[in-house]
């Protein structure tokens, strides 16, 4: 009995003490499936972090829905700029409606998503720079290249923040307190980043997706243009335009065919100054890297695209492509010669498209009833449109993949399509048109016209036109030599801009920019930059409200709507002792 007692007590004591002694080890559990930063502190690790920062370019970082931070700003630049309607129907993505009508406030979750995504880009670029600074043994040229790319990317993310929100806090690789005020103009810092990249990046890169010296130069000039620093911009353009080349070593130029800018099969061409590289069939079985931000922007109804009928070009935009007998744009009064549409006409009923003079770029920008929609067949009108009375009769086109190459360039692994068409952040036509502005402002109108005419000449080349199908019953059989519409377009005759004078020449350049870059996310920011947003957009609301119901009541208010509101939640997150560090933009509550 006694023996058992003691054995029992001893055993108990041993058990307890043996567990106690190993408790420390018992509770040590490292993180699973992840790395500490010490593993990355070398050339290869910094490189991986840099790729991670490029990875933010497509806007997919797990924040909100992908379309809320699409890298082409189709909502904030094109829908808000009057290029397009939100589309779909009235209850779908209702957060976009107030953005389109300029009645959105800082509680709108889309702004928060865009803001968060862009600052994630800033953070990833900063982490490259921070790790680079404390990693030894990287050759100087590599260091410069890595740092140059990181600063280029950071410059891009801040450029986006700046043009969307204006007053934003500056965070760099040395910032330790992330709660910084938005009380300073960050243009100088953005300039510094692009200047560093321009000075340090090589003219060609091992991978076409990387930023090079010339992309940095073009972006630096664009940064100047947004500040009306036309002399500085012109100086850069004077170098970039004649000398610039793409990362894969192609001398900058316009592609022979306008449409090649919008086809995955012909991308990374000589016109692609800097682009977000998109893929399809990348092995993820998702469309996260396949233009996820565009997934809503395909024709609907019984179209072969399945979803979702967003991003429908406006009648006002379509009318802009009307040309004069001389093949020049109708800069004033284009809405008085509206392009015929198929509103209220069912797909079963007959419809004859507009027979008037048009700029051929219209039909690579807008899908309209009765014209070839790439190689998918004639756009059938209403049956591909969700609600004509709400979003209008048109479909987008620059983001649409081709039927013949859909297996390579589209990705059907989600509920809406993905595709491999790059998002063009800057293409050479954009560079030329900005350079034209700079010339018109501080240089020569003749030079400005020369730049504009380069762009128009490409559009006017018959190679750039849309042609009818060889065999209408088999759209895949190719195109005939018959133009799909009555295209009448020519370059400006010699001395035209000089004859117009600076102001009118600028208006012609602005209009050219609208025609060339429509639906590419630039329009709203250009209008603000030019200081003509109020007059232009309020006229647009007045005209377009007679066509569709979606934007009725829209009104741009000067002194307020030039910039979007700082997301309310971010302001609330910046509160210290009851006082927010971030200040709301003027005239937003």
């Amino acid at each position, binding site marked *: 009995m006694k023996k*058992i007692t003691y054995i029992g007590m001893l055993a108990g004591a041993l058990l307890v003490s043996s567990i106690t002694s190993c408790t420390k080890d*018992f*509770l040590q559990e490292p993180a699973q499936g992840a790395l500490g930063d010490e593993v990355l502190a070398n050339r290869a690790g910094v490189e991986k972090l840099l790729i991670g920062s490029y990875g933010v370019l497509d806007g997919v970082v797990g924040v909100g829905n992908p379309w809320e931070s699409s890298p082409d700003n189709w909502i904030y630049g094109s829908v808000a700029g009057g290029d397009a309607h939100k589309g779909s129907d009235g209850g779908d993505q209702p957060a976009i409606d107030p953005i389109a009508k300029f009645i959105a406030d800082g509680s709108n979750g889309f702004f928060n998503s865009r803001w968060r995504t862009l*600052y994630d880009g800033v953070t990833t670029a900063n982490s490259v720079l921070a790790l680079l600074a404390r990693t030894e043994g990287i050759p100087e040229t590599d260091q410069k290249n890595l740092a140059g790319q990181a600063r280029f990317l950071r410059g891009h993310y801040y450029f986006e923040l700046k043009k969307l929100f204006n007053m934003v806090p500056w965070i760099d690789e040395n910032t330790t307190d992330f709660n910084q005020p938005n009380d300073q103009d960050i243009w100088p810092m953005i300039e510094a980043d692009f200047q560093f990249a321009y000075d340090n990046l090589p003219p060609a890169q091992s*991978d076409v997706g990387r930023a090079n010296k010339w992309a940095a130069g073009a972006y630096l000039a664009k940064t100047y243009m947004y500040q009306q620093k036309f002399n500085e911009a012109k100086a850069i353009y004077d170098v970039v335009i004649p000398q610039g080349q793409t990362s894969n070593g192609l001398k900058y130029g316009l592609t022979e065919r306008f449409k090649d800018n919008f086809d995955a099969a012909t991308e990374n061409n000589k016109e692609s100054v800097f682009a977000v*590289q998109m893929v*399809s069939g990348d092995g993820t079985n998702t469309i996260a890297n396949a233009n996820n931000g565009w997934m809503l922007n395909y024709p609907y109804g019984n179209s072969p695209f399945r979803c979702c009928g967003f991003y429908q070009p406006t009648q006002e935009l379509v009318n802009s492509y009307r040309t004069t007998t001389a093949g020049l744009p109708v800069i004033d009064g284009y809405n008085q010669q509206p392009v015929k549409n198929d509103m209220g006409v069912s797909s079963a009923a007959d419809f004859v498209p507009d027979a008037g003079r048009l700029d051929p770029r219209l039909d690579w920008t807008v899908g309209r009833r009765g014209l070839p929609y790439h190689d998918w067949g004639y756009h059938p009108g209403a049956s591909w449109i969700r609600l004509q*009375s709400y979003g209008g009769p048109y479909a987008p086109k620059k983001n649409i993949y081709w039927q013949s190459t859909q297996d390579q360039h589209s990705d059907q692994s989600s509920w809406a399509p993905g595709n491999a068409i790059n998002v063009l952040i800057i293409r050479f036509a954009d560079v030329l048109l900005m350079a034209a502005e700079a010339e018109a402002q501080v240089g020569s109108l003749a030079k400005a016209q020369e730049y504009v005419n380069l762009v128009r000449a490409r559009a006017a080349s018959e190679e750039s036109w849309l042609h009818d199908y060889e065999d209408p019953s088999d759209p895949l059989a190719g195109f005939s030599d018959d133009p799909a519409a009555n295209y009448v377009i020519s370059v400006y005759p010699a001395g035209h801009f000089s004859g117009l004078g600076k102001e009118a020449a600028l208006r012609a350049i602005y209009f050219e920019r609208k025609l060339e870059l429509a639906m590419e996310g630039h329009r709203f920011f250009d209008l603000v930059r030019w200081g003509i947003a109020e007059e232009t957009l309020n006229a647009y609301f007045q005209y377009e409200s007679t066509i569709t119901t979606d934007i009725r009541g829209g009104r741009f208010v000067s002194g307020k709507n030039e910039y979007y509101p700082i997301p309310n939640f971010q302001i609330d997150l910046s509160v210290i002792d009851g006082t927010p560090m971030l200040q709301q933009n003027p005239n937003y509550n």
Partner: protein
Amino acid sequence: MSACAVRISMLSVLLSLAVSPAFASSLIQKQIVGKITDEQGQPLPGVSINIKGSTQGTSSNETGTYSINASPSDILVFKSLGYATVERSVGNESEVNVQLKTDVQSLEQIVVTGYATQRKKDLTGAVSVVDVSEMTQQPVGQVTSQLQGRASGVTILGGGQPGEAPQIRIRGINTFGNNSPLFVVDGVPTTNINDLNPNDIETMQVLKDAGAASIYGSRAANGVITITTKSGKGKIKVNYDAFYGVQTVQQGNVWDILTPQEMADLQWMAKRNTDPDVTPSDDLYGSGERPVLPDYIAPKGLMEGDPGVNPDLYNVNPFYTSPSDADAFYRISRANKEGTDWFHEIFSNAPTTSHNVQVSGSSDAAQYLFSMNYLNQQGTLINTYLKRYSLRSNTNFNVNERIRVGENISFSVMENPTVDARTEGSAIGMALRQQPIIPVRDIMGNYAGSFGGIGNAQNPVAIQERRGNNKGLARRLFGNVFAEVDVIDNLTFRTSFGGELWSGNYRSFAYPTYENAENTGTNSYSENSNHGYNWTWTNTLQYKQVFNEIHDLTLIAGTEGYRNTGGDVGGQTFGYFSFDPDFTNLGTGSGTQTNFSNRYVDALFSYFGRVDYIFKDRYLFGATLRRDGSSRFLKEQFGWFPAVSAGWRLSEESFMSDLDWLNDLKVRVGYGVMGNQLNVDPANAFTTYGSDRQQTFYDIGGTGNTIVEGFKRNRVGNPDAIWEKNINSNIGFDATMFGGKLNITADYYRKDIDDLLYNPALSATAGQATVPFVNVAAMKNSGIDIAASTFFDVTSDLKLDLTGTFTTYNNEIVSVSQSADYFDQEGRRFNGSTIVRNQLGHSVGQFFGYQIEGFWDSQEEIDAAGSGYQNDVAVGRFRYADTDGDGQVTPDDRVFLGNPNPDFSYGLNIGATYKQFDFGIFLYGVVGNDLWNNVKWWHDFYSSFGGAKSKTALYDSWRPDNLNAKAPIQETAGSFSSANVPNSYFVEKGSYLRAKNAQLGYTFSPSLLEGIKVDRLRIYVQAANLFTITNYSGLDPEVSGGTTNFGIDEGTYPSQRQFLFGVNLTF
């Protein structure tokens, strides 16, 4: 042998002499014999039988029989722990058979608390003891669902889906994360009892305050539910319990959906309201003054006789394998002009079956119990069900007088396909949206749908039928082995090693669709499995001694180690040549293959001790202390969790002894600290970098089809996280009155959660890595729990008993983060504003948005308010309240619109027996909560997608001749002033009263059964969810959800009425 031990041995000899019959008087006595049984007719051994007022007594043997000498004037008192005491006068009887009823209210009842057992009357903590036999009558699979309304202080929110584990809240909401209590089953902690067979449960108690629960320190903050499973008693016996029942689906137009013609009329109305000058037209309904229903919806809008509906044109291959094949499809579907009732296309009556066999018994050397259960609860929704097979073996061997070893092991296998109810993508969400003009099938029997833009919902029948071959099987082994050694008298060492080992595998096939407006063109097969185990090793030493008959002392000290590890693995392949379920596996597809895996590991180590001291049966004192270490923390892994509690049995005091009606009154107070670390990710302490193919990879080479690996910081670490503390005070009383006929337990509590571990959003400028949990938040809860029971005999045959519970909690958020004092959830389809705001000073989960003041009835009204008053203003739309009075409706005018937390909930069980009949009904109610009826967003606004609409939209929306409308003017576009922002239109009162269960049973008299060797036979009929009284307009007022976002109804899986027949057989 120690001197102490000798004294105790001698004492026990004396005691045993005292109760031996040799000392009893034996005047004019006769022998009385009899049998004592429990409620199930099982013989009860060990029942003490005493003659009232004397020391004479005996106890029942293994077969439940006894014999005693007594005189006719004597009264026999039958007593057994856990049973209500019964008194019978002898009279002329020579045989006195007694049935004892379990009595949870019995003060002598043994209650399982933390690492100990206590008599109920000795409790100083707040403990709800559940009447298990009443509870388990509810014919549902989950014990946790059955618990609803059965224990005060416990709020349970569930739903009608088989196998859906409900949300359990013990005394309010303690965290923004996982709020589930800790379950301790036969001493083994676990967070999951979904597979526990309710028939195996012997006792269940809810430890609610720190005094009772804080011995479980680290994991006690959400409350603790201790469960013991049954063991064998007495002679070998077999119980067979079975029921079969049918759940019946509610009838009628449950969502109040318009007919197809009315749908067309509504469209015309909305179009006219939006564009008065335009003649409405639609490719389905034509153009003109009145819409005309077509004969065909595919091709859209065609009439009978049109060449386009020639069946020869039909071309649909439902099993197409290339996305582009669908481009050539030619669909022909007739319009269902009568209207398809989508609810009843996916919901239908469904059977439930349960069979339970239990074999048990005991001898001096061992107790044993073996049980098996088969439960098959078919869901009323197509292809949802819970099939569960469970086995249990509990044994206990008395190796010798001082050593006992045993095990409790259960093994379960479950199949439980479910749907994500309350979300728009589920079959239920689609059924409420799919237009009634769409038939289920097209002219060739393939699925019909919204193709061509007849709304954009999916065919809900197709969704559920396509899931028919999706299979999943979850397995779990749960239990422990233990040994107890009485080291010396009064000192017991116990070691228990237990835990769980689980795995599950699931496979599903995603078919391409062709019938919907938005189709999926690909097919894919997915398979995944999860696996893991955890173990808990507990060692305790318990010393229990009564000194001088007035000092009752119990001391317990122990250690506990816990380690949990597991992970999951899975893959997906696209592109199958054939969809034959016998063909598809991860290897047989031609398309891209993906795979994934994850794993986790975490550990806890603890020391604990407890003291219970009772002086003179009158003054009770308890103290517990636990020190816990967690692997989830890095710098300070250990925390202290103390608690003290005290009780005073006033009724033992002389000044109360005059109160004859008061049998027992005890007041209790308790104070202590409980901990929580459940929500903290095991990797929380570390800043880590990682890759993600979807986010950090990039096609840097511009290939168009290949992505290159990139890294990114994916987690911000917080090495400084420490224990969350739940500081808890409780005051309460237990009273027994009128000879035990009325029992009341009531408690008031207050809980302050400090250092609450929460991961508030970081400023975007910090990047998008996973945010760490930091000790930043705080919350408080207070409330009242009351449980009362009474029983009385109406006549000698008709006996009634009533049990009621009453629960309140009042939750308040005290801190969210250092910057923003709120966080938002549930954007749904609104414009980026959210439905739920969890804000400082308010309860968790409150609804937030614009307060509707009425409609804008005229342009004059709008002009009077001023053009800047409200965005998107138009006649017939909502007028919002300018709550801050600045003359404009801005985001700052949003207010709290409702609270999904109830004022109180209650349960009432009424039981009656009349001769061989028994009857019981259980009512459960919730009062004072609000619900967010998001179904209205789809149904009451024409602009909210082209789906099915409600009668409200057509008949009770604003019109110039209907100013006193429910819904606003119907238009083709949504707006800020109608349905684009969360507003008070969607908030409804959620109170309800439901008859959860009603049962009528008949027990055959033992004399009838003797011949067939049956001890007991009872048959019963039962109705679950017999009626519900509520003003809520949705399908079911019981709307569950997450911890901080619940009560949002976007298509619930309703609890259905159920009728059952059952049998209880013992032999």
